[in-house]
């Protein structure tokens, strides 16, 4: 039968139900009449004949029902009937329905929200054309401490010209990758963050602006493409902005385009920060720009392995031809992997946790439905007796549970939308693409699917259980108004045990995650971020000499130092956790084999920087105003004074005093290329670099002023910021403060993805735990009600009440103990999965296991004690009358 006809007949079946039923009636009545006549003809009395005919026909309702099923035409009316009946049943049990809807809404809502996040971050293709052909190319020679190494633009140019595996390559400036400046628009000042990209960057990604045009090869650096968000916020989505020029930081930028809303650069490449516009600003051929992140588009049918081989061969050649470019290489990974690969495991754990919550919800509802057995058993036995087939009854019961699940989804989806929006909008979590998380079509589909399978899952056991036709027993039992026998109880006990076990696993996992998060917060960063306010300081002034520059910033520093509450002031260009350059160094008097020069991170600071961040001075001294500022173009024989960290001292001069030693910074490792002489004047403590988890790498500090201002203050950030601005205004109009925040906030950004995961897993395990405990309570309370007559007898015969309490608690604790043991055993096997997410905590950490087990036992005992107490309070007379 084809579908359209099926549906048509189904609809007709609904519309003409009465007609078809009466037709069937008439047909069967005729059958019985004719049969009666046949019997009369063979010699029976009319009564006998009629009786025999009816007997022979059997249960007419049952036959009719089978006929309807056989025709398959009544499926729709059956469903409508089931739904109507289900709604009536559910409305009659308001308490049960409310509890079920609420837990389902939580379960399905949480799952939908997590699905939306996972979909945005991990599943949905990146917002680029044929995104699976895009690869990220980092420089493995300069990678370190989790920071991908950057590439010189000359290499990008050569790769573009000499390779055959790529359609094209593009790059953006990743090191110090954002320019913060100020837009003057109709006299109103706005801070603007710009990123530099090369002119083919957008073409490589395969995206075109929603308005205007892409960059062209001859565009000057003063053209700009705005992000959709900035365009809407600042220019209220005015399309006339294209072609206008904007006054930014004293220059004039021409707007040529606006990016599409699904790509705002930062969400993919610098999550957790904000980019307002992109500018073409890559000059190929400059050797000092070791700061490019490279993205390439593979030719169709080209594999990443093949491209890697070609690149390796080419780079060997290039290194020979151009020793002045220093050490470089290319490591290709799929762009998707680079962008969100590190979040796969955390989100997997999150998905498992939230799935667990839904599973526990199912188990709870299953057991609630079974508990209603007593009430429903009789009804169902009657239906079976009246001729309903077992399949029909199962379908009815499943319809009820799926109805419930859909109700739960209807409530849960708004919840999911709220949660997803809150997380997507917060921007507090440095997770790429997270801000594009929406409860969209796929997510709604997921919610529906989850609802259907949830309904089936929690409905199937009770449905199978109920529809087992032990008619007589059920009718009798139910008629007596007592328990429906032990068979339901056994299943419910199994359910509770599994529920306890599941929640135990979740508790252990969240315990481990919380512990490692706490350890993470306790990590000695090497500096003290508390009470430090930082901001970018921009001075539009040309200094003719270094001395002038130093004097200027010393004046700034003095004035700020005089502000109320300020303890110390310093400058740096690279705060801890900011991306910075890596260089190769060589200790004077040492020989290194080629390719074995140690890499160190470069940063800068003045004396105040170490003071303000409380970076301890281990040996020697830090900078003073006499120390010459570092310049790239300085003459060959200049000696700079530098401060290094302990790690670098240990690496270069193991067991020796580093102070007074000379080190060469090999900007480029080739012969004759620039190298700077540096004299170590002091050793300071190690500062964690990129991730809190990893030990500090070797670091070298060059003397520097300006850039980022750090201020240690006793004031709050708000009042300090106000004072700072006031002080700076007095210094003149050519100095601007930008991006005021506390150092703690900055550090926090690096912990935020972990915080999100930990918070959610913690929340889900709490939810699961509460649900599981409600489950235990339900089962115990129910078994107490069942045993009230027995308790009455025991009491009447003189059993002390306390022994009744122990009887009930003992029964309940059996389940809790078994579940707890199973859960802890399961955790032992499962927590290895989250090992990669843990920090300084073993996946078999005894504390997490013991605490979770104890918690489950304690709350489990509580859940048993409440009904037990109630049982013991029963008056024997009332209990016996229940029989």
């Amino acid at each position, binding site marked *: *039968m084809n579908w359209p006809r099926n549906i048509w007949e189904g609809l007709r079946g609904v519309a003409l139900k009465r007609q078809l039923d009466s037709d069937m009636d008439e047909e*069967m009545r*005729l059958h019985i009449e*004719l*049969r009666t006549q046949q019997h009369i003809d063979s010699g029976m009395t009319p009564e006998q004949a009629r009786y025999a005919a009816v007997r022979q026909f059997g249960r007419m309702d049952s*036959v009719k029902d*089978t*006929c309807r099923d056989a025709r398959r*035409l009544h499926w729709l009316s059956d469903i409508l009937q089931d739904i109507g009946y289900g709604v009536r049943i559910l409305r009659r049990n308001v308490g049960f329905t409310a509890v079920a809807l609420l837990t389902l809404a939580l379960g399905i809502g949480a799952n939908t929200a997590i699905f939306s996040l996972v979909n945005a971050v991990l599943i949905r293709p990146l917002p680029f054309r044929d995104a699976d052909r895009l690869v990220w190319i980092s420089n493995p020679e300069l990678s370190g401490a989790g920071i991908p190494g950057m590439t010189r633009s000359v290499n990008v140019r050569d790769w573009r010209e000499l390779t055959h595996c790529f359609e094209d390559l593009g790059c953006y400036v990743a090191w110090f990758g954002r320019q913060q400046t100020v837009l003057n628009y109709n006299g109103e000042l706005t801070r603007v963050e710009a990123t530099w990209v090369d002119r083919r960057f957008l073409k490589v990604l395969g995206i075109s602006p929603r308005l205007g045009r892409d960059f062209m090869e001859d565009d000057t650096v003063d053209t700009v493409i705005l992000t959709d968000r900035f365009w809407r916020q600042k220019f209220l989505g005015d399309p006339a902005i294209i072609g206008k020029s904007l006054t930014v930081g004293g220059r004039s930028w021409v707007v040529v385009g606006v990016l599409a809303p699904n790509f705002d650069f930062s969400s993919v490449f610098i999550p957790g920060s904000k980019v307002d516009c992109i500018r073409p600003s890559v000059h190929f051929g400059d050797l000092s720009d070791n700061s490019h992140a490279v993205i390439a588009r593979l030719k169709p049918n080209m594999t990443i392995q093949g491209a890697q081989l070609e690149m390796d061969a080419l780079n060997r050649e290039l290194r020979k031809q151009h020793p002045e470019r220093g050490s470089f290489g290319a490591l290709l990974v799929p762009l998707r992997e680079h962008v969100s690969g590190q979040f796969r495991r955390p989100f997997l754990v999150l998905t498992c946790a939230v799935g667990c919550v839904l599973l526990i919800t199912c188990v709870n509802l299953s057991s609630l439905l079974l508990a209603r057995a007593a009430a429903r058993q009789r009804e169902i036995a009657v239906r079976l007796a009246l001729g309903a087939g077992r399949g029909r009854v199962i379908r009815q019961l499943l319809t009820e549970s799926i109805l419930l699940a859909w109700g739960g989804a209807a409530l849960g989806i708004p919840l999911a939308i709220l949660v997803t929006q809150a997380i997507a909008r917060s921007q507090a979590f440095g997770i790429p693409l997270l801000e594009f998380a929406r409860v969209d079509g796929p997510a709604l589909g997921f919610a529906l699917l989850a609802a259907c399978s949830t309904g089936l899952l929690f409905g199937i056991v009770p449905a199978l259980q109920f529809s087992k036709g032990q008619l007589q027993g059920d009718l009798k039992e139910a008629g007596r108004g007592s328990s429906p026998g032990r068979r339901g109880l056994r299943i419910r006990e199994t359910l509770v045990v599994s529920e306890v076990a599941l929640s135990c696993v979740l508790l252990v996992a969240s315990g481990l995650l919380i512990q490692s998060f706490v350890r993470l917060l306790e990590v000695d960063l090497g500096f003290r971020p508390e009470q430090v306010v930082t901001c970018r300081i921009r001075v539009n002034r040309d200094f003719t000499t270094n001395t002038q520059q130093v004097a200027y910033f010393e004046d700034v520093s003095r004035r700020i130092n005089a502000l109320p509450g300020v303890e110390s002031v310093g400058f740096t260009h690279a705060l801890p956790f900011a991306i910075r350059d890596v260089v190769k160094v060589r200790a004077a008097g040492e020989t290194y084999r080629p390719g074995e020069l140690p890499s160190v991170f470069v940063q800068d600071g003045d004396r105040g920087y170490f003071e303000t961040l409380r970076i301890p001075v281990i040996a020697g001294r830090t900078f003073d105003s006499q120390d010459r500022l570092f310049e790239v173009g300085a003459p060959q024989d200049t000696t700079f004074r530098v401060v290094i960290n302990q790690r670098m001292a240990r690496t270069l001069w193991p067991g020796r005093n580093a102070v007074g030693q000379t080190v060469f910074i090999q900007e480029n490792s080739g012969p004759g290329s620039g190298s700077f002489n540096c004299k170590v004047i002091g050793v300071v403590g190690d500062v964690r670099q990129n991730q809190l988890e990893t030990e500090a790498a070797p670091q070298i500090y060059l003397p520097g002023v300006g850039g980022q201002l750090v201020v240690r203050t006793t004031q709050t950030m708000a009042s300090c910021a106000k004072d700072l601005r006031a002080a700076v205004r007095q210094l003149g109009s050519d100095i601007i403060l930008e991006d005021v925040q506390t150092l703690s906030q900055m550090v926090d950004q690096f912990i935020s993805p972990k915080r999100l995961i930990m918070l959610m897993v913690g929340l889900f395990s709490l939810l699961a735990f509460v649900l599981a405990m409600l489950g235990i309570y339900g089962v115990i309370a129910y078994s107490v009600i069942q045993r009230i007559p027995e308790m009455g007898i025991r009491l009447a015969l003189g059993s002390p009440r306390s022994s009744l309490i122990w009887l009930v608690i003992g029964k309940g604790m059996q389940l809790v103990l078994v579940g707890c043991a199973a859960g802890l055993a399961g955790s032992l096997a499962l927590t290895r999965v989250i090992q990669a997410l843990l920090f300084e905590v073993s996946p078999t950490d005894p504390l997490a296991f013991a605490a979770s087990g104890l918690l489950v036992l304690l709350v489990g005992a509580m859940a048993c004690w409440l009904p037990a107490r109630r049982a013991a309070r029963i008056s024997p007379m009332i209990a016996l009358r229940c029989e």
Partner: protein
Amino acid sequence: MHKIELLQGTLDMLILKVLNPRPLHGFGIAERIEHLSQDVLSVGEGSLYPALYRLQDRGWIQSEWGQSENNRRAKYYSLTRAGRKQLETEASGWEQMCAAIGRIMQSA
């Protein structure tokens, strides 16, 4: 008379067969099968009517209201073209099976 139950799956074929010459109503079909089998086979109403609805649903038979022999409204079933074809298929399948089973039963 000792009656035996119908072999599983044969009822559909028998219905198609007795409907082949002319349309019959439900009781007529039952009676005809019993009569043709010389009262050896009995057709329970509990399986006859569902079978009729099933065959109709598959498009092998169709129904029409008409006058019964005792002047009552009765639903007459008749074969459709697809039903005739089906009957042929089932009949030849049946013959093959009978022959095969016969051979096995005689062999021992």
